[in-house]
Protein backbone atom coordinates (compact mmCIF):
# COMPACT_ATOMS: atom_id res chain seq x y z
CA UNK A 1 0.00 0.00 0.00
CA UNK A 2 2.87 2.25 0.79
CA UNK A 3 4.72 1.54 -2.42
CA UNK A 4 2.60 3.56 -4.82
CA UNK A 5 3.25 7.11 -3.56
CA UNK A 6 6.93 6.33 -3.00
CA UNK A 7 7.31 5.11 -6.55
CA UNK A 8 5.63 8.22 -7.85
CA UNK A 9 7.97 10.46 -5.92
CA UNK A 10 10.98 8.57 -7.24
CA UNK A 11 9.78 8.90 -10.81
CA UNK A 12 9.37 12.62 -10.39
CA UNK A 13 12.82 13.09 -9.01
CA UNK A 14 14.37 11.25 -11.91
CA UNK A 15 12.52 13.34 -14.45
CA UNK A 16 13.21 16.75 -12.97
CA UNK A 17 16.19 18.20 -11.11
CA UNK A 18 17.88 15.05 -9.81
CA UNK A 19 20.96 16.89 -8.57
CA UNK A 20 19.17 19.32 -6.27
CA UNK A 21 20.26 19.74 -2.62
CA UNK A 22 17.04 18.10 -1.51
CA UNK A 23 18.11 14.75 -2.90
CA UNK A 24 18.09 12.93 0.40
CA UNK A 25 14.82 14.34 1.61
CA UNK A 26 12.94 12.98 -1.33
CA UNK A 27 13.54 9.31 -0.63
CA UNK A 28 11.59 9.35 2.62
CA UNK A 29 7.91 9.97 2.10
CA UNK A 30 6.59 9.98 5.65
CA UNK A 31 7.15 13.11 7.72
CA UNK A 32 6.26 14.25 11.24
CA UNK A 33 5.62 17.80 12.49
CA UNK A 34 8.79 19.83 12.91
CA UNK A 35 10.77 17.74 10.47
CA UNK A 36 13.02 19.64 8.11
CA UNK A 37 12.24 18.59 4.56
CA UNK A 38 14.64 20.75 2.61
CA UNK A 39 15.73 24.25 1.65
CA UNK A 40 13.11 26.75 0.67
CA UNK A 41 15.15 28.12 -2.21
CA UNK A 42 13.25 27.80 -5.47
CA UNK A 43 10.55 25.65 -3.88
CA UNK A 44 7.08 26.70 -2.85
CA UNK A 45 5.65 25.60 0.46
CA UNK A 46 2.33 23.87 -0.16
CA UNK A 47 -0.24 22.41 2.20
CA UNK A 48 1.21 21.28 5.54
CA UNK A 49 4.57 22.96 4.96
CA UNK A 50 5.98 26.27 6.16
CA UNK A 51 9.19 28.07 5.22
CA UNK A 52 11.30 29.62 7.98
CA UNK A 53 14.91 30.82 7.83
CA UNK A 54 15.39 29.36 4.38
CA UNK A 55 14.26 25.91 5.48
CA UNK A 56 11.08 24.01 4.75
CA UNK A 57 9.44 22.44 7.76
CA UNK A 58 6.56 19.98 7.83
CA UNK A 59 3.78 21.02 10.19
CA UNK A 60 1.63 17.94 9.85
CA UNK A 61 2.12 14.22 9.98
CA UNK A 62 1.72 12.64 6.58
CA UNK A 63 3.25 11.81 3.23
CA UNK A 64 5.51 14.15 1.34
CA UNK A 65 4.24 15.10 -2.10
CA UNK A 66 5.96 17.05 -4.80
CA UNK A 67 4.10 18.63 -7.66
CA UNK A 68 6.06 20.91 -9.92
CA UNK A 69 7.79 23.38 -7.66
CA UNK A 70 5.42 22.89 -4.74
CA UNK A 71 6.25 20.61 -1.85
CA UNK A 72 3.34 19.60 0.33
CA UNK A 73 2.33 17.09 2.98
CA UNK A 74 -0.73 14.92 2.50
CA UNK A 75 -1.94 14.43 6.07
CA UNK A 76 -2.75 11.00 7.49
CA UNK A 77 -5.69 12.39 9.44
CA UNK A 78 -7.67 15.41 8.43
CA UNK A 79 -10.78 17.35 9.20
CA UNK A 80 -12.91 19.01 6.57
CA UNK A 81 -12.38 22.76 6.18
CA UNK A 82 -15.07 24.38 4.01
CA UNK A 83 -14.10 26.14 0.81
CA UNK A 84 -16.42 28.11 -1.47
CA UNK A 85 -18.19 26.05 -4.16
CA UNK A 86 -17.59 22.71 -2.40
CA UNK A 87 -20.39 20.19 -2.76
CA UNK A 88 -21.18 18.94 0.76
CA UNK A 89 -23.60 16.69 2.59
CA UNK A 90 -24.77 18.10 5.90
CA UNK A 91 -27.22 17.37 8.66
CA UNK A 92 -29.66 19.96 9.97
CA UNK A 93 -28.68 20.56 13.56
CA UNK A 94 -30.94 23.43 14.50
CA UNK A 95 -33.15 26.14 13.13
CA UNK A 96 -34.56 29.54 13.84
CA UNK A 97 -37.47 31.23 12.09
CA UNK A 98 -35.42 31.94 8.98
CA UNK A 99 -32.12 30.03 9.27
CA UNK A 100 -31.08 26.42 9.35
CA UNK A 101 -27.82 25.40 11.04
CA UNK A 102 -26.05 22.69 9.10
CA UNK A 103 -23.42 20.30 10.45
CA UNK A 104 -20.77 19.56 7.80
CA UNK A 105 -18.13 17.68 9.82
CA UNK A 106 -16.12 20.91 9.97
CA UNK A 107 -15.09 22.76 13.14
CA UNK A 108 -18.10 25.07 12.74
CA UNK A 109 -21.70 24.65 11.68
CA UNK A 110 -22.69 26.36 8.47
CA UNK A 111 -25.79 28.47 8.15
CA UNK A 112 -28.42 28.05 5.47
CA UNK A 113 -30.62 31.15 5.26
CA UNK A 114 -34.21 30.75 4.20
CA UNK A 115 -33.53 32.76 1.06
CA UNK A 116 -31.06 30.09 -0.10
CA UNK A 117 -33.28 27.17 0.98
CA UNK A 118 -35.23 24.80 -1.24
CA UNK A 119 -38.07 26.58 -2.96
CA UNK A 120 -40.37 28.98 -1.21
CA UNK A 121 -40.48 28.82 2.56
CA UNK A 122 -42.71 30.93 4.76
CA UNK A 123 -41.14 32.85 7.62
CA UNK A 124 -41.31 30.57 10.67
CA UNK A 125 -41.88 27.50 8.55
CA UNK A 126 -38.30 26.28 8.43
CA UNK A 127 -38.91 23.18 10.54
CA UNK A 128 -41.78 21.99 8.42
CA UNK A 129 -39.56 21.98 5.32
CA UNK A 130 -36.37 20.48 6.79
CA UNK A 131 -36.32 19.32 10.38
CA UNK A 132 -33.45 18.59 12.77
CA UNK A 133 -31.62 15.42 11.75
CA UNK A 134 -32.47 15.67 8.06
CA UNK A 135 -29.62 15.21 5.59
CA UNK A 136 -29.17 17.66 2.75
CA UNK A 137 -27.01 17.95 -0.30
CA UNK A 138 -25.82 21.54 -0.56
CA UNK A 139 -23.03 23.74 -1.80
CA UNK A 140 -20.74 26.07 0.17
CA UNK A 141 -21.54 29.60 -0.92
CA UNK A 142 -19.19 31.65 1.18
CA UNK A 143 -16.55 31.18 3.89
CA UNK A 144 -15.68 34.05 6.16
CA UNK A 145 -12.32 34.82 7.69
CA UNK A 146 -13.52 33.49 11.02
CA UNK A 147 -14.32 30.11 9.42
CA UNK A 148 -18.08 30.50 9.60
CA UNK A 149 -19.67 29.51 6.33
CA UNK A 150 -22.90 29.85 4.40
CA UNK A 151 -24.33 27.02 2.33
CA UNK A 152 -26.91 27.17 -0.41
CA UNK A 153 -29.45 24.78 -1.85
CA UNK A 154 -30.06 26.82 -4.99
CA UNK A 155 -28.47 24.90 -7.81
CA UNK A 156 -28.59 21.77 -9.92
CA UNK A 157 -29.24 18.60 -7.94
CA UNK A 158 -29.12 20.22 -4.53
CA UNK A 159 -31.86 18.81 -2.35
CA UNK A 160 -32.95 17.11 0.81
CA UNK A 161 -31.86 13.46 0.93
CA UNK A 162 -34.84 11.16 1.45
CA UNK A 163 -33.53 7.70 0.50
CA UNK A 164 -30.37 5.60 0.55
CA UNK A 165 -27.59 5.79 3.11
CA UNK A 166 -24.85 8.27 3.95
CA UNK A 167 -21.31 7.08 4.61
CA UNK A 168 -18.29 9.03 5.76
CA UNK A 169 -14.52 8.83 5.27
CA UNK A 170 -11.67 11.26 5.99
CA UNK A 171 -11.72 13.97 3.28
CA UNK A 172 -8.12 13.44 2.23
CA UNK A 173 -8.97 9.84 1.23
CA UNK A 174 -11.51 10.96 -1.36
CA UNK A 175 -8.88 11.04 -4.07
CA UNK A 176 -8.26 7.35 -3.55
CA UNK A 177 -11.97 6.58 -3.86
CA UNK A 178 -12.49 8.68 -6.96
CA UNK A 179 -9.31 7.71 -8.78
CA UNK A 180 -7.62 9.46 -11.65
CA UNK A 181 -10.24 11.26 -13.71
CA UNK A 182 -12.99 9.53 -11.72
CA UNK A 183 -12.07 6.06 -12.99
CA UNK A 184 -12.37 4.17 -9.69
CA UNK A 185 -15.66 5.78 -8.80
CA UNK A 186 -17.15 5.08 -12.22
CA UNK A 187 -16.09 1.45 -11.94
CA UNK A 188 -17.57 1.19 -8.46
CA UNK A 189 -20.87 2.60 -9.70
CA UNK A 190 -20.96 0.06 -12.52
CA UNK A 191 -20.05 -2.88 -10.29
CA UNK A 192 -22.60 -2.13 -7.62
CA UNK A 193 -25.38 -0.58 -9.67
CA UNK A 194 -25.70 2.12 -7.03
CA UNK A 195 -26.16 5.79 -7.40
CA UNK A 196 -23.27 7.44 -5.56
CA UNK A 197 -22.82 11.14 -4.90
CA UNK A 198 -19.45 11.96 -3.34
CA UNK A 199 -19.32 15.25 -1.46
CA UNK A 200 -16.16 17.20 -0.72
CA UNK A 201 -16.55 16.90 3.05
CA UNK A 202 -15.91 13.16 2.95
CA UNK A 203 -19.55 12.14 3.07
CA UNK A 204 -21.29 10.28 0.30
CA UNK A 205 -24.85 9.45 -0.53
CA UNK A 206 -25.36 5.89 -1.74
CA UNK A 207 -28.70 4.83 -3.13
CA UNK A 208 -29.53 1.45 -4.62
CA UNK A 209 -29.95 -2.25 -3.86
CA UNK A 210 -28.85 -3.51 -0.45
CA UNK A 211 -26.14 -5.76 -1.90
CA UNK A 212 -24.72 -2.87 -3.84
CA UNK A 213 -24.64 -0.66 -0.74
CA UNK A 214 -22.83 -3.40 1.19
CA UNK A 215 -20.26 -3.63 -1.58
CA UNK A 216 -19.64 0.11 -1.50
CA UNK A 217 -19.31 -0.05 2.28
CA UNK A 218 -16.66 -2.75 2.11
CA UNK A 219 -14.73 -0.67 -0.41
CA UNK A 220 -14.88 2.34 1.92
CA UNK A 221 -13.66 0.19 4.81
CA UNK A 222 -10.72 -1.01 2.76
CA UNK A 223 -9.82 2.58 1.86
CA UNK A 224 -9.99 4.03 5.36
CA UNK A 225 -8.82 0.90 7.14
CA UNK A 226 -5.73 0.54 5.01
CA UNK A 227 -4.46 3.94 5.93
CA UNK A 228 -4.59 4.12 9.70
Amino acid sequence: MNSRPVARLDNMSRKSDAGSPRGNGRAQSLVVPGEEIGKSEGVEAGHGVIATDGRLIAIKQGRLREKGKTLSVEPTHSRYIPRPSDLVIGYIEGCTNNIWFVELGAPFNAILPMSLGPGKVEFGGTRSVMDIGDAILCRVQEVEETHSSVVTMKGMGLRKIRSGVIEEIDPHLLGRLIGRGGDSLRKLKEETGCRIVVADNGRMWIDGELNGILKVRSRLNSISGGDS
Partner: protein
Amino acid sequence: MGGYGDVQMIDENGLRLDGRGPGDLREISIETGVVPVADGSCRMTWGTNEAIVAVYGPMEAHPRKIQRQDRAVLDVSYNMAPFSTTDRMRPGFNRRSREISKVTKDALESVVLLELYPRSKIRISIEIISAEAGTRCVGLTAASVALADAGIPMTDMVVSVASGKINDVVVCDLNKEEDNYGEADLPMGILPNSGELVFLQMDGDLSQEEFELAWKLNMDAATLIHQKMVASLKGGDSQ
Protein backbone atom coordinates in the same frame (compact mmCIF):
# COMPACT_ATOMS: atom_id res chain seq x y z
CA MET B 1 22.69 17.12 52.26
CA GLY B 2 20.64 16.05 55.27
CA GLY B 3 16.99 15.15 55.33
CA TYR B 4 15.94 12.57 52.82
CA GLY B 5 19.30 12.85 51.10
CA ASP B 6 20.72 10.29 53.50
CA VAL B 7 19.03 7.40 51.70
CA GLN B 8 21.69 5.55 49.70
CA MET B 9 20.49 5.28 46.11
CA ILE B 10 23.70 4.88 44.14
CA ASP B 11 25.95 1.87 44.69
CA GLU B 12 29.75 1.76 44.60
CA ASN B 13 29.73 1.08 40.85
CA GLY B 14 27.76 4.26 40.22
CA LEU B 15 24.61 2.33 39.34
CA ARG B 16 21.17 3.36 40.53
CA LEU B 17 18.51 1.31 42.37
CA ASP B 18 17.09 -0.08 39.15
CA GLY B 19 20.51 -0.75 37.65
CA ARG B 20 20.66 2.28 35.36
CA GLY B 21 23.66 4.52 34.92
CA PRO B 22 23.32 8.27 35.64
CA GLY B 23 22.36 9.21 32.07
CA ASP B 24 20.11 6.23 31.26
CA LEU B 25 16.40 6.52 30.59
CA ARG B 26 13.73 4.08 31.60
CA GLU B 27 12.22 2.00 28.83
CA ILE B 28 9.82 3.92 26.60
CA SER B 29 7.20 2.65 24.21
CA ILE B 30 4.76 4.74 22.19
CA GLU B 31 1.66 3.64 20.32
CA THR B 32 -0.72 5.84 18.32
CA GLY B 33 -4.36 5.44 17.37
CA VAL B 34 -5.36 3.71 20.61
CA VAL B 35 -8.64 5.61 21.03
CA PRO B 36 -10.68 4.89 17.87
CA VAL B 37 -13.30 7.61 18.36
CA ALA B 38 -10.74 10.37 18.94
CA ASP B 39 -9.21 12.43 16.13
CA GLY B 40 -5.78 11.48 17.42
CA SER B 41 -4.53 9.46 20.36
CA CYS B 42 -1.42 8.02 21.92
CA ARG B 43 -0.52 5.53 24.60
CA MET B 44 2.89 6.02 26.11
CA THR B 45 4.57 3.77 28.65
CA TRP B 46 7.68 5.12 30.29
CA GLY B 47 9.11 2.75 32.87
CA THR B 48 6.05 1.91 34.95
CA ASN B 49 4.35 5.16 34.02
CA GLU B 50 1.53 4.88 31.56
CA ALA B 51 -0.53 7.64 29.97
CA ILE B 52 -3.30 7.69 27.37
CA VAL B 53 -3.91 10.93 25.52
CA ALA B 54 -6.85 11.67 23.25
CA VAL B 55 -7.16 14.74 21.03
CA TYR B 56 -10.47 16.04 19.69
CA GLY B 57 -10.94 18.90 17.30
CA PRO B 58 -10.55 21.55 16.08
CA MET B 59 -14.19 22.15 16.95
CA GLU B 60 -16.40 25.05 17.91
CA ALA B 61 -15.36 26.44 21.27
CA HIS B 62 -18.05 26.38 23.95
CA PRO B 63 -19.00 28.39 25.92
CA ARG B 64 -18.66 31.26 23.48
CA LYS B 65 -16.88 33.48 25.97
CA ILE B 66 -13.76 31.30 25.72
CA GLN B 67 -13.60 31.78 21.94
CA ARG B 68 -10.80 33.92 20.57
CA GLN B 69 -11.53 35.71 17.32
CA ASP B 70 -7.98 35.37 16.02
CA ARG B 71 -6.89 31.91 17.15
CA ALA B 72 -7.90 28.55 18.56
CA VAL B 73 -7.79 27.73 22.25
CA LEU B 74 -6.38 24.57 23.77
CA ASP B 75 -8.38 22.79 26.42
CA VAL B 76 -5.92 20.56 28.24
CA SER B 77 -6.98 18.34 31.08
CA TYR B 78 -4.48 16.22 32.96
CA ASN B 79 -6.01 13.65 35.24
CA MET B 80 -4.71 10.71 37.25
CA ALA B 81 -6.91 7.64 37.40
CA PRO B 82 -7.95 6.66 40.94
CA PHE B 83 -6.07 3.39 40.57
CA SER B 84 -2.89 4.94 39.16
CA THR B 85 -1.09 5.17 42.49
CA THR B 86 -0.74 2.87 45.52
CA ASP B 87 -2.75 5.31 47.61
CA ARG B 88 -6.13 5.75 46.00
CA MET B 89 -6.18 8.99 44.05
CA ARG B 90 -9.34 10.94 44.76
CA PRO B 91 -11.16 11.34 41.43
CA GLY B 92 -11.51 14.75 39.89
CA PHE B 93 -9.32 17.79 39.62
CA ASN B 94 -7.06 18.93 42.41
CA ARG B 95 -4.50 21.67 42.77
CA ARG B 96 -1.72 19.55 41.31
CA SER B 97 -3.62 18.41 38.22
CA ARG B 98 -4.78 21.95 37.50
CA GLU B 99 -1.22 23.16 37.61
CA ILE B 100 0.01 20.42 35.29
CA SER B 101 -2.88 21.06 32.89
CA LYS B 102 -1.88 24.69 32.74
CA VAL B 103 1.85 24.19 32.17
CA THR B 104 1.09 21.53 29.54
CA LYS B 105 -1.27 23.93 27.78
CA ASP B 106 1.32 26.72 27.84
CA ALA B 107 4.01 24.41 26.45
CA LEU B 108 1.80 23.13 23.63
CA GLU B 109 0.50 26.59 22.72
CA SER B 110 3.97 27.56 21.60
CA VAL B 111 4.12 24.82 18.95
CA VAL B 112 0.53 24.41 17.71
CA LEU B 113 -0.37 26.82 14.88
CA LEU B 114 -3.44 28.16 16.65
CA GLU B 115 -4.03 31.06 14.28
CA LEU B 116 -5.15 28.64 11.55
CA TYR B 117 -8.34 27.80 13.44
CA PRO B 118 -9.89 31.01 14.79
CA ARG B 119 -12.81 30.66 17.24
CA SER B 120 -12.23 26.94 17.67
CA LYS B 121 -11.04 24.68 20.42
CA ILE B 122 -8.73 21.68 20.49
CA ARG B 123 -9.42 19.37 23.39
CA ILE B 124 -6.55 17.31 24.80
CA SER B 125 -7.30 14.80 27.53
CA ILE B 126 -4.34 13.31 29.34
CA GLU B 127 -5.21 10.36 31.52
CA ILE B 128 -2.52 8.83 33.72
CA ILE B 129 -3.20 5.11 34.05
CA SER B 130 -0.17 4.20 36.10
CA ALA B 131 2.01 6.72 37.90
CA GLU B 132 5.52 6.31 39.17
CA ALA B 133 7.43 9.56 38.75
CA GLY B 134 7.59 12.13 36.00
CA THR B 135 3.99 11.83 34.84
CA ARG B 136 3.92 15.46 33.70
CA CYS B 137 6.74 14.65 31.29
CA VAL B 138 4.93 11.55 30.03
CA GLY B 139 1.70 13.51 29.64
CA LEU B 140 3.27 16.37 27.71
CA THR B 141 5.31 14.12 25.42
CA ALA B 142 2.34 11.85 24.72
CA ALA B 143 0.12 14.88 24.08
CA SER B 144 2.40 16.15 21.34
CA VAL B 145 2.41 12.70 19.70
CA ALA B 146 -1.39 12.58 19.89
CA LEU B 147 -1.63 16.06 18.35
CA ALA B 148 0.58 14.94 15.47
CA ASP B 149 -1.59 11.85 15.08
CA ALA B 150 -4.69 14.05 14.91
CA GLY B 151 -3.20 16.02 12.01
CA ILE B 152 -3.02 19.26 13.98
CA PRO B 153 -0.44 21.60 12.39
CA MET B 154 2.57 22.17 14.62
CA THR B 155 5.94 23.76 14.08
CA ASP B 156 7.63 21.10 16.19
CA MET B 157 6.85 18.41 18.72
CA VAL B 158 7.51 18.87 22.43
CA VAL B 159 9.70 16.34 24.20
CA SER B 160 9.60 16.50 27.95
CA VAL B 161 12.07 14.83 30.28
CA ALA B 162 13.32 15.41 33.82
CA SER B 163 16.74 15.18 35.43
CA GLY B 164 17.54 15.52 39.10
CA LYS B 165 20.03 15.04 41.85
CA ILE B 166 20.32 12.04 44.15
CA ASN B 167 23.12 11.55 46.69
CA ASP B 168 24.86 14.60 45.17
CA VAL B 169 24.96 12.98 41.73
CA VAL B 170 23.05 14.47 38.79
CA VAL B 171 21.03 11.74 37.05
CA CYS B 172 18.50 11.61 34.25
CA ASP B 173 14.87 10.45 34.45
CA LEU B 174 14.20 9.93 38.16
CA ASN B 175 12.11 6.98 39.30
CA LYS B 176 9.79 6.99 42.31
CA GLU B 177 12.37 6.43 45.05
CA GLU B 178 14.79 8.90 43.51
CA ASP B 179 12.02 11.46 43.17
CA ASN B 180 10.85 11.00 46.78
CA TYR B 181 14.21 10.81 48.52
CA GLY B 182 16.39 12.76 46.07
CA GLU B 183 17.47 16.36 46.41
CA ALA B 184 16.25 17.99 43.22
CA ASP B 185 14.12 17.49 40.14
CA LEU B 186 14.29 19.51 36.90
CA PRO B 187 11.59 18.73 34.31
CA MET B 188 12.02 20.42 30.94
CA GLY B 189 10.00 20.65 27.74
CA ILE B 190 12.26 20.77 24.71
CA LEU B 191 11.66 21.37 21.01
CA PRO B 192 14.01 18.76 19.59
CA ASN B 193 14.61 20.32 16.20
CA SER B 194 15.54 23.78 17.42
CA GLY B 195 16.64 22.99 20.99
CA GLU B 196 14.29 25.67 22.32
CA LEU B 197 12.70 25.39 25.73
CA VAL B 198 8.93 25.65 26.23
CA PHE B 199 8.60 24.31 29.76
CA LEU B 200 10.91 24.41 32.77
CA GLN B 201 10.25 23.69 36.41
CA MET B 202 12.57 22.99 39.30
CA ASP B 203 11.98 21.33 42.61
CA GLY B 204 14.84 21.46 45.16
CA ASP B 205 18.24 23.06 44.83
CA LEU B 206 20.94 22.69 42.19
CA SER B 207 24.23 24.55 41.95
CA GLN B 208 25.01 26.21 38.65
CA GLU B 209 27.27 23.35 37.52
CA GLU B 210 24.70 20.77 38.51
CA PHE B 211 22.00 22.72 36.70
CA GLU B 212 24.06 22.82 33.54
CA LEU B 213 24.76 19.10 33.76
CA ALA B 214 21.08 18.30 34.32
CA TRP B 215 20.26 20.56 31.35
CA LYS B 216 22.68 18.65 29.15
CA LEU B 217 21.35 15.27 30.29
CA ASN B 218 17.82 16.42 29.44
CA MET B 219 18.87 17.69 26.03
CA ASP B 220 20.60 14.40 25.19
CA ALA B 221 17.65 12.38 26.44
CA ALA B 222 15.25 14.52 24.40
CA THR B 223 17.05 13.55 21.20
CA LEU B 224 16.63 9.86 22.02
CA ILE B 225 12.98 10.22 22.96
CA HIS B 226 12.28 12.26 19.82
CA GLN B 227 13.66 9.43 17.71
CA LYS B 228 11.21 7.04 19.38
CA MET B 229 8.32 9.44 18.81
CA VAL B 230 9.18 9.80 15.13
CA ALA B 231 9.58 6.04 14.77
CA SER B 232 6.18 5.36 16.32
CA LEU B 233 4.43 7.98 14.20
CA LYS B 234 6.03 6.76 10.99
CA GLY B 235 5.80 3.07 11.85
CA GLY B 236 2.15 3.25 12.84
CA ASP B 237 1.27 4.59 9.45
CA SER B 238 2.83 1.92 7.29
CA GLN B 239 1.04 -1.00 8.92
